[in-house]
């Protein structure tokens, strides 16, 4: 069976769509913002071709393609690890074949907003680890910083190459009922998932070549190349024109090991573990079969806490003794720099619009979700009084843990959470429930709306560079607002269109 071409005449097409039941038959919008449909019978302009293309498919046909995609993922070992599962520790990421499409004019705004944001965050890191103007000018109260779990006093007055702290950032965006994009959180430590973006695109091109025919989709393929340039940009001067770059992985048992290995292969650099590195005279070397070889830039996927047993967790086996000293001496660059976790703190996140105004003298292009910081007495009172309407989050958790969905929780759950908030208000923030936008997803033999978010990836070398695409995560359970892969989320390919 060959795929049916859908460039037939309009009349033919309409009759064929009318004649047979499509997989959209029972589709419902439920009063949400739908990415594909403006209203029940009106497709948004940039989805029209995709919609017509999808209407051509019958469930069996579609299912065959879904299986092709699954086999492609499994054979290549595109997996993530689920901790605590005895036998099948490696799982494939559930992949939803219906692509998410973002038109150029929307993307322009996202791109400008994300570039603005990463620029401000880098200025913030430099400021907070040096002069702390943002504290002395009373924009952020000092206790917010010193009380932050991921503030690293070891980084005070340390010079980092070219003043770049965050080289790679993954910022999560959501769309509310009004269709506007909001920033939900920044991942300024070690955002993962970019390998799925590249691999999903490769699989989509293989499984649905015809769907691409009607669109000019911007390529994401040069991401590894750009990443390598971003890393080389911060190499110490002694490295010369061809610095040695390596990726530091916690090892094969890490949940994102596939991605570490994938990026090393794509960039053509070595993938090292802590045991492969030694520090001598404040230089970092890797152990090769021909002796020690100097490393100039480390793209490290090991958390701050484990990176150097002499500075942080003394019992860490994942890090390298003396690495922090080599870093402080400027003999090795690390991406991202130590200490960027301060930006991931959800209470600090609330101040990012202020940072943009303070450092850049600009208005934020992408708004935050309105956030109540429980460390402020008024906000805390409001939060406790309105628990049933709010989403409460612990400030330093991720992956969908440490969260209360007030409107779905039981009374007991709410009370237990209120108790925790009263005990340690600094550790919590609250936000109104964002009714995430939905997107058609394959459910059994038809399409249904499922909530989605979007994680674009931003590189910061000589200038910000936003990858035209990203990881669209899908909550595969009906009505669920939680899209994290550790909580049963899936992903779909994200198409950013040329003008």
């Amino acid at each position, binding site marked *: 069976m060959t795929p049916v071409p859908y460039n037939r005449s309009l009349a033919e097409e309409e009759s064929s769509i009318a004649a047979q039941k499509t997989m959209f038959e029972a589709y419902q919008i439920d009063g949400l913002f739908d990415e594909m449909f403006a209203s029940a019978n009106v497709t948004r302009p940039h989805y029209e071709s995709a919609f017509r293309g999808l209407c051509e498919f019958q469930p069996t046909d579609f299912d065959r393609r879904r299986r092709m995609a699954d086999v492609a993922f499994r054979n290549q070992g595109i997996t993530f690890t689920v901790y605590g599962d005895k036998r099948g520790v490696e799982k494939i990421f559930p992949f939803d074949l219906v692509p998410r499409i973002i038109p150029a004019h929307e993307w322009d705004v996202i791109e400008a907003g994300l570039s603005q944001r990463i620029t401000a965050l880098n200025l913030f890191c430099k400021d907070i680890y040096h002069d702390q103007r943002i504290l002395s000018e009373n924009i952020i109260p000092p206790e917010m910083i010193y009380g932050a779990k991921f503030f690293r006093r070891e980084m005070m007055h340390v010079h980092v190459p070219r003043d770049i702290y965050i080289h790679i950032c993954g910022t999560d965006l959501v769309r509310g009922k009004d269709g506007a994009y909001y920033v939900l959180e920044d991942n300024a430590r070690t955002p993962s998932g970019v390998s799925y973006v590249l691999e999903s695109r490769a699989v989509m091109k293989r499984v649905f070549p015809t769907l691409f025919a009607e669109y000019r989709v911007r390529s994401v393929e040069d991401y590894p190349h750009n990443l390598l340039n971003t890393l080389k940009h911060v190499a110490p001067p002694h490295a010369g024109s061809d610095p040695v770059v390596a990726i530091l992985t916690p090892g094969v048992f890490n949940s994102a090991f596939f991605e570490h290995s994938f990026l090393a292969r794509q960039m053509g650099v070595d993938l090292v573990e802590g*045991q492969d590195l030694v520090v001598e005279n404040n230089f970092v070397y890797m152990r*090769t079969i*021909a002796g020690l*070889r100097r490393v100039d830039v480390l793209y490290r996927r090991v958390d701050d806490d484990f990176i150097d047993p002499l500075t942080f967790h003394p019992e860490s086996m994942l890090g390298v003794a003396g690495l922090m000293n080599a870093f402080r001496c400027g003999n090795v660059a690390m991406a991202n720099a130590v200490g960027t976790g301060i930006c991931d703190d959800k209470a600090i996140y609330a101040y990012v619009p202020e940072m943009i105004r303070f450092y850049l003298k600009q208005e934020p292009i992408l708004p935050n979700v309105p956030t109540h910081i429980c460390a402020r007495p008024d906000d805390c009172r409001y939060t406790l009084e309105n628990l049933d309407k709010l989403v409460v989050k612990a400030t330093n958790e991720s992956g969908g843990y440490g969260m209360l969905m007030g409107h779905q929780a039981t009374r007991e759950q709410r009370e237990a959470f209120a108790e925790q908030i009263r005990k340690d208000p600094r550790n919590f923030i609250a936000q109104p429930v964002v009714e995430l936008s939905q997107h058609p997803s394959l459910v059994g033999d038809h399409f249904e709306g499922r909530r989605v978010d979007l994680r674009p990836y931003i590189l910061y070398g000589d200038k910000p560079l936003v990858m035209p695409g990203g990881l669209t995560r899908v909550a595969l359970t009906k009505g669920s607002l939680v899209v994290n892969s550790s909580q049963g989320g899936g992903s779909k390919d994200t198409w950013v269109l040329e003008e």
Partner: protein
Amino acid sequence: MAEPRENITTLPVESRSKFDQRGRARPMLSRDADAMYWMCRYVERAEHVARLLMINASTLIDVGDLETDALNKLWLSILRVFRIEHPPPSDLPLAEAISRYMTFEIANPNSIVSCLTRARENARSIRENISAEMWEALNSSYLSVRADDAVARFDESREDFYRSVLASSMLFQGLTNQTLPHTQRWQFAQVAKYFERIDVTSRILDTRWSLLASGELTIEPQLRNIHWMGVLRSCCSIETFRREYPGEMDPLRIAQFLILRNDFPRSIRFCVEQASESLTSLRTMTSRAIDPAERIVGRLLAQLDYAELAEVLNVGISRYLQNIQHQISEAATAVQKAYFLY
């Protein structure tokens, strides 16, 4: 027919070093080399286990009714090849228990499933450095022996099951040869493969020799041929041997063939020569002055190059083979010390 050639020499060549034909492989990580080495040893070992089990079963069908004691000795000798002292505790008949133990038992580090699991774990840790083809071949052979229906397929046809393990090892080795540049990485693959083959081949010959030739086992004369053919089959050597020495199976000729041939990939001298060449290349590539492993293997090679069967028999087949095993184990340790664990 002569083509005008003058243009070829005038092609502009900017700098010779820039277009260096030898490639510019940077020295590989020690851990990477270590994983490469063990990945290849385990794949080779899985192949030997599968072949031994398969041949033993089919030889025993040919020899017909044997005394239980003789039968048990033959099965136990398979365990001895892999240095396993005691049979696994089991209610099954010994032959059955050993077959399953050597095929599926995870607790047995030398079972087929264990070997392929370890090979694949090593491969996974260096996936970015081996070819996609190698990874897919190894991954699918691993998935096949660990699949839910693996035992059912085994019960349906042992031979098919073992044959698929053999084929996947051969495929993997072919891919290693044909999809990797023949640089340091490939040299480690060679060293690993040949070290493992030398070790297992010499132990197969050693254990069978003591059973068949030194009278541990009393065999009826008419069955001797079948048993000795089984030895050659276990070393994947029957056809070549028969073509060169038609007629009766002469144990001395078999020993000579498996130990001293220099042009047959299954005989020990050939493997030692290959390993020696790879060790020399590795030393050159990593600019070392001396390498203990190279010295040990080179000395062993010289000994085999100038050996005569009479000499071997003087020392005693068993002692001669044990010396080879000892030298290879020393060399393997030296490789580890020089390249992986310094």
